[in-house]
């Protein structure tokens, strides 16, 4: 194997530095960090986007993406949330960070975002920490959407992995067009349950295919949900998804 090149390899874009202002443990294995740029500026992003954090592991630095769980309208710090993964060295490093530590990051990135809500009914689907990008998307949908229904199906393998429950309840009280349902099911059954509910609510219930969807989750379940909705007649570009 060989590489032939001249000069220095091109590098990436400029890096931002953020300080950990606060941390919040949702439960034993799920944490939020609240970050503020050290130069005092406000991070500008679209709901649904993520940042990339440089994580030193051994003698190299890896890039790992974390969705922003707060809304652009919130001044000061912005929030990322994540859960411990068996063997996940990157997230392990992140769990070791303390208030006052600095992180190097780039971003924001990502096309799974909502600048303005479409003026049609909106379906949101998330599981566990994948609620992170959906949370600001929901807020934007409520603030900029028509009065068309917005419904969130949010699942987890156990109750403590349902995050921001109070926020969701509050949003449902404030916005009469928003409703949500929580699905708790064993991990091996959860994705099937999400598909069943999506099918019943948005496919079997009527012939309306004007809805738009934002789906975020982990693994192939997201692709199966995408295929379910597109296969039922929803436009390709009406089904937004992000798979981690």
């Amino acid at each position, binding site marked *: 194997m060989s590489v032939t090149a001249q000069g220095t390899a091109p590098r990436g874009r400029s890096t931002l530095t953020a300080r950990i202002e606060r941390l919040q443990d949702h439960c034993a294995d799920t944490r939020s960090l609240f970050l503020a740029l050290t130069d005092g500026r406000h991070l500008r992003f679209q709901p649904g986007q993520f940042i990339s954090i440089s994580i030193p592991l051994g003698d190299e630095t*890896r890039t790992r993406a974390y969705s922003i769980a707060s809304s652009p309208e919130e001044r000061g710090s912005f929030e990322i949330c994540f859960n411990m993964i068996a063997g996940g060295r990157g997230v392990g490093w992140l769990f070791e960070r303390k208030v006052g530590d600095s992180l190097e990051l780039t971003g924001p990135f990502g096309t799974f975002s909502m600048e303005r809500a479409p003026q049609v009914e909106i379906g949101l689907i998330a599981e566990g920490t994948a609620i992170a990008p959906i949370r600001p998307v929901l807020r934007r949908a409520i603030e900029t959407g028509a009065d068309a229904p917005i419904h969130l199906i949010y699942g987890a393998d156990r109750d403590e992995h349902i995050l921001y429950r109070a926020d969701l309840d509050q949003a449902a009280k404030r916005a009469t067009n928003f409703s949500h349902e929580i699905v708790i099911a064993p991990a091996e059954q959860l994705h099937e349950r999400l598909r069943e509910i999506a099918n019943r609510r948005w496919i079997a219930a009527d012939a309306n295919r004007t809805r738009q969807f934002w789906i975020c989750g982990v693994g192939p379940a997201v692709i199966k949900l995408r295929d379910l909705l597109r296969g039922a007649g929803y436009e390709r570009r009406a089904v937004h998804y992000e798979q981690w």
Partner: protein
Amino acid sequence: MAKLRIQYENGEPERVIEFDPAKSPFHHDGKPGSILDVMLGHKLHLEHACGGNCACTTCHVIVKQGFNKLGEASEQEEDLLDKAPGLTPTSRLGCQAVITDPDAEIVIVVPRYTINQVSEAAEE
């Protein structure tokens, strides 16, 4: 040995990597044997803001030669490419375009910009 020739739209000098696809993965991000994997494994930088998980378009490359030698693009990759600036009929995401043919000669161009690059990410 397969050959990957990398050209840069911003005028950086061309690089050429010769490698054995059977020895993939070369790194840990992107699909094993992908353009991203090959480049990172040979210490050449290619943006991959999402960690090579097919969740952004920062590793967008334009394939100038050998397009048909690459593994087929998934619907997920095509969905993302739809949002890449400067999209061409031979655009691919570096993290997803896998080189398996040991005789492949692939030429790519790394575009100057990506959709995810915000020129001024922070504001006062």
